């Protein structure tokens, strides 16, 4: 039992490895290596919406949550939200406390004494209108979809209320409407956008901490916001292609 030795000359070896390296190189030219972006807008023209939230400007008044509930007939009970505000408090001994009394609508009261606070800030949350949204992928009947404008919407006349998408959304942005029995979520006020009006949460914000606009237009307010600030999305590791950009968000926020 002997190992069969092949006589490979040095020349042969160099030629073969050269061919392989060259082949890989040319193959990579066919599909060039792209920089890593959280989202890449699909082909086409027309608007493709993105949202920006300027954490530094948020005063935690929850006017956005209030306006949203009024505009969109969201039940007033504290478990149904299309958008809401959370207060994060990081204490000096590195505990993270998150409060959101009725989504912020009941007003925030800081329970941690000021001397123990390392850092505290508000984080408004809403649907990220993901480009590769997990929620639309799981819908068994095709009632949850991404519109050509890049908005994740629900066809409430077609939804069967199975709640699968509610489970799938990593950001907790969907709920089952108690009266209609179907899923309800942020539409970025699609009914207002199509009439040329701003979404309710955007116009309610007293400090203009909320921005939205066309990501395809490189001069739009949102594109400028993303360019000029160091923006991050929530849970980037899930590769949902989230289009809700926060500037200078703490990494503790989930």
């Amino acid at each position, binding site marked *: 039992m002997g190992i069969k030795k092949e006589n490979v000359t040095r020349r042969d070896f160099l030629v073969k490895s050269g061919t392989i390296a060259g082949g890989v190189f040319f193959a990579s030219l066919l599909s060039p290596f792209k920089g890593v972006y959280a989202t890449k807008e699909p082909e086409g023209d027309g608007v493709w919406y993105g949202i920006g939230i300027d954490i530094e*400007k948020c005063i935690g008044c929850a*006017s956005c949550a209030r306006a949203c509930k*009024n505009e969109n007939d969201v039940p007033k009970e504290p478990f149904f939200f299309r958008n809401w505000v959370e207060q994060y408090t990081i204490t000096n001994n590195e505990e993270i406390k998150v409060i959101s009394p009725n989504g912020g609508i009941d007003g*925030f009261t800081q329970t941690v004494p000021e001397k123990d606070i390392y850092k505290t800030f508000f984080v408004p949350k809403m649907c990220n209108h993901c480009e590769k949204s997990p929620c639309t992928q799981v819908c068994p009947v095709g009632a949850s979809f991404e519109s050509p404008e890049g908005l994740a919407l629900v066809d409430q*006349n*077609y939804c069967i209320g199975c709640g699968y998408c509610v489970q799938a959304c990593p950001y907790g942005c969907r709920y089952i409407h108690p009266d209609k029995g179907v899923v309800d979520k942020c539409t970025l006020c*699609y009914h207002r956008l199509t009439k040329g009006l701003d979404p*309710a949460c955007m*116009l*309610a914000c007293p400090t203009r901490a909320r921005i939205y606009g066309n990501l395809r237009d490189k001069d739009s307010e949102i594109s400028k916001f993303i360019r000029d600030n160091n923006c991050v999305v929530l849970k980037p590791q899930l590769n949902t292609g989230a289009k809700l950009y926060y500037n200078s968000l703490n990494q503790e926020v989930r």
Partner: protein
Amino acid sequence: MPIQVKRLLMVFGLFIAIMAVLIYFLTPESWGEFGHYRGLALKEIADKEVKHVDVNETCAMCHDSISATFASGEHKSINCQNCHNVGYKHVEDPTKENIVKPEVTRDFCLRCHAKNPARPENYIKQVDAIEHNKDKVCINCHNPHKPWE
């Protein structure tokens, strides 16, 4: 062809025929117009009722003096509907019933102005929720439309 294969093929054929009929009758109108969903759904969502008017200038058409005072005060960046609730119906048909004249408690103002270390001091002035002129209603001293008047 053996008989059992023939039967199997017949069953398959029947199955495909039934599927075709079901797909024909159960696919809703406008399915697949833009993608794997009903195209009409977009129109249905777009037709929902609008409740907020867009800008404060809409209110200024009729409430010109209040709006003028308002626009010269510190609250000018706030939308009227933040305090007065939705105003679309009121603009179409102005009555007292379809707009809210807010009942001012201290909490009404403190939801924005209460002292909280998370609030950025340069965007909102804050007062101590309990100590600032204890037990008095804010609008005794501050005009809600122009706080320093």
